[in-house]
């Protein structure tokens, strides 16, 4: 049953299983284990980014395609939901059609870009997506009459998902059961389902063919698989998943703006998460996203302490200043591409043998 749920792709490493279980249990009971607004925000962010990073891994790890337009699809999903809620009021109907419309638009965009530039080299695709994504980001922030520009959109969501809604009068285990909690579980279960769907996809014959195309496109073509078709489908699929993750973010934050969805910083974050977690395995996305976001939220405090401790040494204290944490992640990123391209998960699985 469990193996079936995981589509036969078990973690295959004791330590990895333990880590994944810790992540799963912590996320599933986050409101009760770690009370407080900040930790709930972090937990929801982790859920959403697991889906986003896994969908990127579908491209980078399984298909060997480097795209810089992933935040664009993420943003399309978020803006789809946000615009629907903003224009036609906070109802479930508008929530659903906004989400679906976002996913559809993302799919069409991905199809166009894919058919257009996947026929040539991987490098070409990377450059085209980089150009298109940054143009899109600028475009969105200039269409301020529709998207709110740089300020983004604030909107209402259905009342049942807001803190104002009380499900149970009394506190349960010291936690208020309100709409925010319902929203969190909506995010959590939706993320879990999307993740399992992706796990199903990569372990299907389709996923296996994707790997074949990644490893040797010429040979796959010779055997009779249409490489362009597989690559384009993977692009579209990952775009739809990213758009759905974007919709979840839009519902959770009740705010959508360029900085939270479309910026290049987020694209780089996703890239770091995939590579550090492990390319070519969806569990890598889980670990990568979790570690990265925990580091982003809590490591900076630690670095602040380190910066104060070394404040007497001029250069070192600037290097360990909390704002410079991306520097160290960049170094870690380069090192991990060189020395363990299969990431944390690859290390753990290799260590088992």
């Amino acid at each position, binding site marked *: 049953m469990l193996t079936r749920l995981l589509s036969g792709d078990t973690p295959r490493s004791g330590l990895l299983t333990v880590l994944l279980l810790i992540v799963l249990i912590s996320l599933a009971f986050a409101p009760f284990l770690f009370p407080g607004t900040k930790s709930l925000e972090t937990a929801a962010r982790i859920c959403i980014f697991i889906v986003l990073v896994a969908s990127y891994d579908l491209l*980078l790890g399984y298909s*060997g395609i*480097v795209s810089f337009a992933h935040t664009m699809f993420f943003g399309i999903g978020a803006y789809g939901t946000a615009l629907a809620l903003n224009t036609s009021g906070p109802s479930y109907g508008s929530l659903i059609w906004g989400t679906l419309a976002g996913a559809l638009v993302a799919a069409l965009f991905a199809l166009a870009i894919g058919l*257009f*530039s996947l*026929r*040539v*080299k*991987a*490098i*070409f695709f*990377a*450059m*085209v997506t*980089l*150009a*298109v994504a*940054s*143009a899109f980001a*600028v*475009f969105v922030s*200039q*269409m301020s009459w529709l998207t709110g520009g740089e300020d983004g959109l604030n909107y209402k969501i259905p009342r049942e998902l807001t803190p104002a809604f009380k499900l149970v009068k009394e506190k349960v285990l010291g936690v208020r059961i309100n709409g925010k909690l319902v929203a969190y579980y909506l995010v959590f279960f939706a993320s879990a389902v999307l993740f399992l769907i992706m796990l199903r996809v990569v372990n299907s014959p389709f996923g296996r063919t994707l790997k074949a195309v990644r490893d040797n496109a010429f040979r796959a073509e010779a055997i009779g698989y249409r490489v362009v078709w597989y690559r384009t489908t993977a692009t579209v699929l990952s775009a739809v998943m990213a758009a759905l993750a974007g919709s979840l973010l839009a519902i959770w934050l009740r705010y959508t703006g360029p900085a939270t969805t479309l910026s*290049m910083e987020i694209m*780089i974050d996703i*890239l770091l998460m995939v*590579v550090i977690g492990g390319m070519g395995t969806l569990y890598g996305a889980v670990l990568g996203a979790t570690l990265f976001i925990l580091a982003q939220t809590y490591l900076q405090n630690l670095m602040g302490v380190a910066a104060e401790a070394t404040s007497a040494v001029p*250069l070192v204290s*600037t*290097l360990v200043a909390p*704002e*410079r944490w*991306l*520097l160290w*992640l*960049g*170094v870690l*990123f*380069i090192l991990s*591409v*060189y020395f363990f*391209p299969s990431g944390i998960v690859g290390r753990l699985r290799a260590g088992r043998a």
Partner: protein
Amino acid sequence: MSETAIKPRIEKVPLREQFFQKLPVLLVPMLALLGLMAIGNPASWLTLTVAGLAMGMMIFIMASGLTVVFGLMDVINFGHGAFVAVGAFVGFTVLAWLAGWTASPSVMLNLAAVLIAILAAMVVTGLLGYAFERVIVMPVYGEHLKQILVTMGGLIVAQQMIYVVWGPDELHLSRPEAFQGSIVLGEAAIEKYRLVAVAIGLALFLAMRHILKNTKVGLLVRAGVENGEMVEALGYRIRRLFLIVFMTGSALAGLGGVMWGLYQETITAHMGSEIMVLVFIVVIIGGLGSVEGCFIGALLVGLLANYTAFLAPKVALISTIALMVAILMWRPQGIYPVVKAK
């Protein structure tokens, strides 16, 4: 012995095909003409055209290194933007030191200050290019996926190092006296600095063409682009050649950075990644690896960006994307695709 030596037969290309090959050269005047028709007013058209050409030249300076590096070694450097930013910061620092020279009304002192700044920036970015090639690019020759990832990582680290060295704020600096103000030509006002940028860009393009076409190094580079293995088999160390090209490309990016910085008069640590978008569009339009294509692409993008910024400011960046799409529909590999003998 018969006198009939065997001569290589060079087939004459029919005029029609020659014309089609040269067709892209006409794109730039065509676009300029279209711009004139759309704008209507010749004075503002002239101002915009000069601005567009200046912008195009600066983008060309930055993009040329990238495209040659790709042509020669199949290496694409996503961290190229870091050289642009570092060059700009070094140049600005030098100019700030020489504040006495830049503020004086003497043209010679102004020029000297700018030249020293450019030289310093090019030396620093050239050396940085050396380090980048050795440490970051060399271990991943031939692996595109890792190249993209690793050079992206290099970009992140380089940008963060700029923050560490120069602090988080943007730098402002006004241009030296001699480059401020504009020349009035009829009704059109043309900024002096733009003319300087056009001149430098044009000189650089001609010099580059000359080196590639008429010198031994250029011959080796062109041969390496076409068939690297054969060049190696003939006893030339293509790796060393590549290192030289990479360093030159980085130094040119630094030059472009200083010029762009003086053009905008404000620089930030992430200016590199912003400009890289334009640079990539230009390189794609021109055809990866082709210097001439890159030149034409840069001019097209510069002109189009300025025309649309005047006509419909909201779609300026989108229009360059549309241009890229249009060119790729016409020639899927770019204007002048580089033919690899493989």
